């Protein structure tokens, strides 16, 4: 009797877990199906290769090439910047400082707090800075603000991987007469490359999908920017503006844009996974 009850419990719990897991997969499929079905009718090649012409948001001619390029410029630029700032931070607090370092704790605390700040706050902060400096909405401002959004994501992501690097690897390099710098930049970095790749991907995904932070800082335009100082369109805002129109045809274009955005993120994710596998070739797993 007691035994039956335990088996029943086991079955119910298993059932719940299976349901939740399937729910997640179902959600992904549902989103992709929705944007595909709704967007496919509006999706055509001119969406991809043309910029918005006059009256685009009223159902006129044109495409969203400017927003695709804008999003890439902002998310790409910001990810690069954030990577070059966060990697030294993380290597410093992990390899150069001892395990009980107060400074490292403070820095970890900082990026954990920054990680939780909503992107609209970064946007508002960026906007205030721009007003103070007398700058207008521009590609550069967009890149800088998205860098702020991505920085804690990257730093946290990389920090988690670096903390898992076995201390023996550091010791082995030091024993060969390597300086701390050589240990960090020539040895530890190779162990964490796949992890860095994942962190970059997360940060890039967050950056390219963010609408709130770029709203005031990058502005919006119908053109491909020719300099860092010009305002620039982004995909999430393009989706937002198209959805906001009363015209069903334009709304369908919004779904087509969403489809393109999702496809872009997905293909980058798959590419990164492929490279990540190559990068983890030399990683030391067993210790």
């Amino acid at each position, binding site marked *: 009797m007691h035994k039956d009850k335990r088996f029943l419990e086991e079955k119910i719990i298993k059932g719940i877990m299976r349901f939740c897991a399937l729910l997640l997969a179902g959600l992904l499929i549902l989103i992709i199906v929705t944007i595909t079905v709704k967007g496919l009718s509006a999706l055509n090649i001119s969406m991809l290769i043309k910029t918005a012409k006059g009256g685009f948001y009223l159902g006129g001619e044109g495409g969203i090439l400017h927003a695709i390029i804008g999003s890439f410029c902002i998310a790409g630029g910001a990810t690069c910047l954030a990577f070059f700032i966060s990697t030294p931070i993380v290597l410093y607090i992990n390899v150069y400082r*001892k*395990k*009980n370092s107060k400074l490292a704790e403070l820095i970890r605390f900082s990026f954990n707090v920054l990680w939780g700040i909503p992107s609209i706050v970064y946007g508002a902060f960026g906007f205030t800075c721009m007003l103070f400096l007398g700058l207008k909405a521009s590609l550069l401002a967009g890149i800088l603000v998205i860098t702020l959004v991505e920085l804690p994501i990257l730093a946290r992501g990389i920090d988690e991987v670096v903390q898992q690097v*076995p*201390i*023996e*690897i*550091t*010791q*082995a*390099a*030091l*024993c*060969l*007469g*390597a*300086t701390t710098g*050589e240990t960090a930049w*020539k*040895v530890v970095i*190779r*162990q964490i490359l796949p992890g860095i790749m994942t962190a970059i991907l997360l940060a890039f995904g967050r950056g390219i999908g963010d609408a709130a932070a770029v709203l005031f800082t990058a502005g919006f335009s119908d053109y491909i920017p020719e300099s860092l100082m010009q305002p620039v369109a982004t995909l999430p805002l393009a989706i937002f503006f198209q959805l906001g129109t009363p015209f069903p045809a334009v709304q369908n274009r919004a779904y087509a844009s969403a489809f393109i955005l999702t496809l872009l993120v997905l293909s980058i994710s798959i590419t990164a996974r492929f490279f990540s596998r190559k990068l983890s*070739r*030399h*990683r*030391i*797993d*067993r*210790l």
Partner: protein
Amino acid sequence: MQQQTHIEIKNLSVFYGDVTALQNITLTIPDKKITVIIGPSGCGKTTLLKSFNRLIDLEVGVKINGKIFVDKENIFTPGLEPTHIRKKMGLLAQKPCPLPMSIFENVAFGPRIHGLKNRKRLHGIVRYHLKQAGLWKEVKNRLHEPASKLSIGQQQRLCLARGLAVKPEIILGDEPTSALDPASSKRIEEIFLMLKSRYTIVLVTHILRQAKRLADYIVFLYNGKLIEYGPADSVLNNPQQTLTQEYIYGVVS
């Protein structure tokens, strides 16, 4: 004039916070011999070994009194950059730890950071030291494969080759066979015996039989204190101190 050896320890005490790990150790390590440090777990064997190349710097809350002279230079001199000290000593850890790179790059790493760029010479160095460590035949056709793919015994020999490639004068071994199977342990022991004519070797072990097989000199530590030190024959066969006798004849373990 007293003859100088590579490593001389004078009144060395090491504390981890309030815990005394080593207490007033004075010791001269003879050159080109195998000195084996024995003693029960937690007696300070590894601490002593890690003091030699200042790997002990990485420990949290460590405090050091006294001096260790490596080639007449006190390695605890404030402000001293320890890299050149470490370069003089290859360390074999308890568990072999290859660097996250290929077999070739593992051995070439040391020479590379010390400035050697010539590919042909690097290749020669890698081949020579892999041969020294008895690994060349097994890996010569897969030099560019990840080092992590080697068996654990091969990895330990790779670590030895990697250490030898920076041309040390001293080899430190921290229970270097404890993670290995008997056959691999035997190979490592044979290599040590072969290398001792050219290198000063200091080993930590908790295996008495291994100490008997390898040691020219024995250092017996107990509770952070140096209890007995001398030629292997006399310490192992005719220990003078009661603690040493008890340890060697198996009363304490």
